[in-house]
């Protein structure tokens, strides 16, 4: 159990670090690189740098709302 927790923690850390590194490259460094540089082919166009986080945030918010709603419904059922 403890080992699984540790593995999940390591996975979360690695995920967040990789997302941060990739996004930093994408947003901060890429505007200063020539548009015909070979590294440009590893990154999506700039519009997606806005679209993907907004989409992810909306999905997260929906998930949170559904979770809270289901918990409230469950507690109500238990009380009755």
């Amino acid at each position: 159990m403890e080992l699984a927790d540790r593995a999940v923690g390591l996975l979360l850390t690695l995920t967040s670090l990789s997302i941060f590194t990739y996004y930093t490259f994408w947003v901060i460094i890429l505007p200063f690189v020539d548009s015909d540089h070979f590294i440009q082919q590893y990154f999506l166009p700039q519009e997606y740098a806005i679209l993907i986080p907004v989409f992810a945030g909306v999905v997260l918010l929906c998930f949170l709302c559904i979770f809270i709603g289901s918990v409230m419904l469950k507690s109500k059922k238990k009380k009755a």
Partner: protein
Amino acid sequence: MKHIIKIITLLVAISAFWIGLLQASVIPSSHTWLLPIYFIVSLGCYGLLMVGVGLMRFPTCPQEALLLQQDIVEAKDFLKQKGVDVGGSD
């Protein structure tokens, strides 16, 4: 209360820097508009990182659990001597 003042100061400084960048237009504005989203994404990454690190080095203390069990047994004995019904007399 002091912590929130620090956070608000940091936010004001960052937004002032961002507005300055927008006004000065040193870099194209389409890239300057990305910076708040970059800030939010980095905040989310920081939160995820803290959760991961906290999960990785979650402190467990088996000695303390053993001591607690001993304490419970001791307290149950003591209460039984005094004639208190502890319940769950195992």
